């Protein structure tokens, strides 16, 4: 039985077909990246996996069970999410933000153990200086980092990341990539969207090439990111660049 199976997914939004016939089979512990041009449906796919959006057709099976049959809490124990941009509507301390990772485990009231778990992780990542600050005032990088840490607190098997490095400076790209590597070492499954080839090569095992909502090809990182594939994917002539890799440092 497959670990995580994405089967025959179709999704339309305002009469525009966003995803067509998506079929992906993900193994436990692997790191897979969804890669493609803007507007090709990547974020939508991630949200469907998380249960935020419901597909028009098709299902997603986790260890053989339809994820929509899980309760929200059960799903949250399996999947955690680092969105592209973190919005904050109200002031809150970083500690309060982090402890929300424990939501799927909390019944009514936050307990001492919940707090301790959070404090442990804060210590592990040396974030003590930040925990009482207003989360709204943190930099993009710090926010992204904290959200990633929250996935530890959430303790899920599958981590889903939507363009985690896009707005970040070099320091935070480095930090986050390192943490992702650690996550991989812990045996967790990572589903990500990246725009730069460097990160993909660093983190991922397999890549799903997606264009206009359809899967072009799925394959291993070293084999699939050829100039020909990139040309088809982006409708842009990459073949003429001799040192393609140097472009994407």
């Amino acid at each position: 039985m497959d670990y995580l199976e994405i089967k025959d997914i179709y999704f339309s939004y305002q009469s525009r077909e966003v995803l067509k016939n998506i079929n992906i089979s993900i193994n436990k512990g692997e790191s897979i990246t969804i890669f493609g041009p803007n507007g090709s449906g990547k974020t939508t796919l991630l949200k469907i996996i998380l249960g935020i959006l419901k597909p028009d057709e098709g299902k997603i099976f986790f260890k053989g069970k339809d994820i929509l049959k899980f309760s929200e809490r059960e799903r949250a124990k399996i999947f955690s999410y680092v969105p592209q941009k973190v919005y904050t509507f109200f002031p809150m301390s970083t500690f309060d933000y982090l402890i929300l990772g424990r939501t799927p485990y909390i019944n009514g009231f936050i307990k001492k153990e919940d707090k301790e778990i959070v404090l442990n992780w804060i210590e592990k990542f040396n974030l003590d200086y930040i925990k009482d600050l207003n989360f709204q005032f943190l930099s993009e990088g710090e926010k992204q980092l904290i959200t990633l840490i929250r996935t530890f607190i959430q303790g899920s098997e599958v981590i889903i990341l939507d363009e985690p490095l896009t707005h970040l400076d070099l320091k935070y790209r480095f930090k986050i990539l390192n943490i992702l590597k650690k996550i991989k070492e812990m045996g967790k499954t990572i589903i990500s969207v990246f725009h730069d080839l460097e990160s993909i090569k660093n983190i991922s095992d397999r890549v799903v090439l997606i264009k206009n909502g359809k899967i072009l090809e799925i394959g291993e990182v070293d084999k699939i990111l050829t100039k020909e594939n990139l040309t088809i994917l982006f409708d842009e002539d990459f073949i003429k660049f001799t040192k393609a890799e140097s472009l994407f440092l």
Partner: protein
Amino acid sequence: MNKKIFVLILIFLTIIIFLLSMSFGSKSYSFLEIIKFLLNPKEGDELLLKIRFPRVLSSFLVGASLSIAGLLSQTLFLNPLADPFLFGISSGANFFVTLSLFLGLDMIFKFSLSFFSFLGALFTTFIILLISRMKGKITPLNLLLAGIALSYLFSSISSFLTIWGRDVLNKSVFWTLTGFSTVNIDKIYILILILIPATIFSILLNVQLDAYSLGEDEAVSVGVNIKFLKSILLFLIALLTGVSVYVSGIIGFIGLMVPNILRSLFGLNHLKLISLSILLGGLLLMSSDLIGRFILFPTEIPVSIITSFLGAPFFFYLLFKKRSY
């Protein structure tokens, strides 16, 4: 400002204002008499038992009620400028009151006018829920639009009824200005009956509310059932606001001010926010009622006028304070 000191000041002020409110009125009582009364209510003065105490208590409870409703509204709409009347509850309550005045049903049973206002609040929320569901998703925008549409509809029908009916205009205006002057021991029962379970429920949901404050997508990702949460929030807001309107007409600003003040000090934690809303909201409204009774004594100034006076400087404060988002 140190949070602990703030809470202590709140508690201290509440006790003081409570004692002052209990002692001041057409008949004065000393603090000692009040304490004796509280220890043994049956032995106390009739006026204290049946009029003064219910009045002071209900002003506190309605303040608490409106503040929690305001907090829940702001969380629901993910907007610190939301208040419990934002999606048309006040025009719904007002509409039912005007309709009952027009049909001559305003006195068919005790408190019937108040009861209709409560019904109006619930009815409005129900309709809005229905409309939002029809639209597909309950989003803050949908709620707001539905609320505005209903407000216009209700206001226009109400206006029509006030012109057509006899005395409907002044009576409906007076109803909105009622405040706490007609409160007696009977009205208190319903207030407590609804306020306690609604508060308990809200408290049980505190973590869900915290998580919902992250935004819908993230809330789902940490396991919140947002469809259920939004519906239940609407229902709680309707109940809390409806019962407040039942007891004392429409009182603005409390639901808006209290959660904002508390959030700036205590952040996101809804457990703290709800508990402190009870305290701060109760204190504010109890004080407002005391002021309303005191300034032009023995004429009463309706409490909603006093809260409006407090609301104006608050908005200026919001305007000029450092924006955090």
